[in-house]
């Protein structure tokens, strides 16, 4: 019985990972919290003073702050809506017997591997550009005015770009879940005369429930921090029309040199993310017990 020895060894083996992550989590976060109570501007670093909750009040009264929270929620909600519904539909389609299934899967999954700045630039210039974009060409061919996406519908344009990147992820996860559905169950339901809609509602959807939850939660974590797509397309504008919380914090910190204000925003971002994390941990944790 080498239990005592093994346990010590196991602790030693885990120590580097645990310690690194502990430091990584605590030190910067503690600094952010500390800065959030300071009047600290990078242009005037000699003059740092304690200001209590002033930085939070600044965020509270700044209309850009509310707009950025709203935009953050719109991006998360809009992308989730498109990717979950679209993902289910495409997964159902790809689950059918089709010719060239392997190639179709490769084509569908591809956008996920495109780095965000490339995805954003492709859409900005090749697809949505009011002069030379493909959508403008289509509009002109049909006799309509081309749409200037990033001036007229900046937030929607960003939602479309981000949804394009995440649709493959949702599709792939839901397809994997679909393929684990017992085909005998499907056949039994079919023999009992259940039509497609009934089979979908009473058999497929409950089976997919868990995968859908996972897709929603994981995507939400990444979607709360959408950054590069905004940076290379609209730069947050016009005005603050497409600025989300992540982008506002970046702007406050590195363009406005306001360390205190940006840190207060960071703390608010942490709180938002924690609300999501709480639910995700419960969903993943439940799976570990099985």
């Amino acid at each position: 019985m080498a239990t005592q020895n093994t346990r010590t060894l196991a602790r030693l083996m885990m120590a580097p990972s645990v310690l690194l992550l502990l430091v990584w989590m605590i030190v910067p976060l503690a600094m952010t919290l500390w800065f959030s109570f300071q009047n600290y501007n990078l242009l005037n670093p000699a003059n740092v003073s304690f200001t209590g909750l002033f930085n939070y009040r600044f965020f509270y009264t700044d209309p850009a702050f509310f707009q950025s929270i709203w935009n953050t929620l719109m991006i998360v909600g809009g992308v989730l809506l498109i990717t979950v519904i679209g993902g289910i539909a495409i997964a159902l389609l790809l689950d059918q017997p089709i010719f060239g299934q392997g190639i179709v899967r490769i084509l569908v999954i591809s956008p996920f591997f495109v780095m965000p700045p490339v995805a954003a630039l492709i859409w900005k210039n090749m697809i949505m550009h009011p002069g030379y974009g493909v959508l403008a060409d289509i509009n002109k061919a049909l006799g309509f005015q081309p749409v200037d996406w990033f001036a007229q519908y900046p937030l929607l344009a960003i939602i479309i770009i981000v949804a394009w990147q995440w649709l493959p992820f949702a599709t792939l996860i839901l397809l994997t879940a679909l393929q684990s559905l017992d085909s005998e169950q499907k056949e039994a339901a079919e023999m009992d005369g259940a039509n497609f809609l009934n089979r979908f509602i009473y058999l497929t959807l409950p089976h997919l429930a868990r995968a859908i939850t996972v897709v929603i939660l994981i995507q939400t974590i990444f979607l709360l921090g959408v950054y590069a797509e905004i940076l290379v397309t609209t730069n947050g504008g016009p005005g603050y029309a497409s600025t989300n919380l992540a982008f506002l914090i970046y702007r406050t910190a590195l363009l406005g040199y306001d360390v205190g204000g940006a840190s207060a925003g960071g703390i608010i971002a942490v709180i938002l993310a924690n609300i999501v994390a709480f639910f995700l941990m419960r969903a993943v944790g439940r799976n570990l017990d099985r």
Partner: protein
Amino acid sequence: MARSVTTRHKVTATIAAWIVALVIFFPILYTLITSIKTEPEAIAGFSLIPSGTFENYVTVQTQRDYLKPFMNSVVLSVGSTILALIIAIPAAWAMAFSPTKRTKDILMWMLSTKMMPAVAVLVPIYLMFRDFGLLDSRIGLTVMLTLINLPIVVWMLYTYFREIPGEILEAARMDGAGLWQEIVYVLTPMAVPGIASTLLLNVILAWNESFWTIRLTTTNAAPLTAFIASFSSPQGLFWAKLSAASTMAIAPILILGWFSQKQLVRGLTFGAVK
């Protein structure tokens, strides 16, 4: 029972699936096509037939030195992944083979560090990097990417290692295998596929990371993400050149990605969907 699939059903599904797939893939395809057009062709309206010039690729290399950010991307993504593996393999191993009551809590806690929004620590990280002279250095960014992806690496390895049956070790021991033989002949061959999958997925994630790589670099250590982001303010005709640069930035990882579909599902859902 043989549920006969009618050919008509299969043909209809095939057509629908191919249309959907081509629409989704279209932006990538069109970029590829535009990259071998000339600049006037690229803005001359919709056309799927390029003149087939490779001039843009040459221009991107000669004018913007594409190879430098490319090498930075390779060094950063592979370097940070290997570093993460070295740290994570023992940890995942210990958790999979001698789990304690707290193993699950530790795993969940590690996952929770992944949920900290990057912007929340932008200010302190930026200031620390500035004060330690790590801005625009490969070393600083490699460490950063290692820390960001460490939880996912531990998790993925853990889910793979957990599937290696413990009995096989006992059997090897009964047959008289020493610890060294046990590791070399029994464990390593069984662990390699899991480690390879983890490596693959993590290289992809690190390659595409677009917050820290853009914010913490300027020129010397800038990988492809930062390189491409610098194209956002164009000068003159640049559609075809942008397409060539984009194609070169995504092609290697796109091809790797095609091989990683299964690992992707498993790794990014933390084993919740297999």
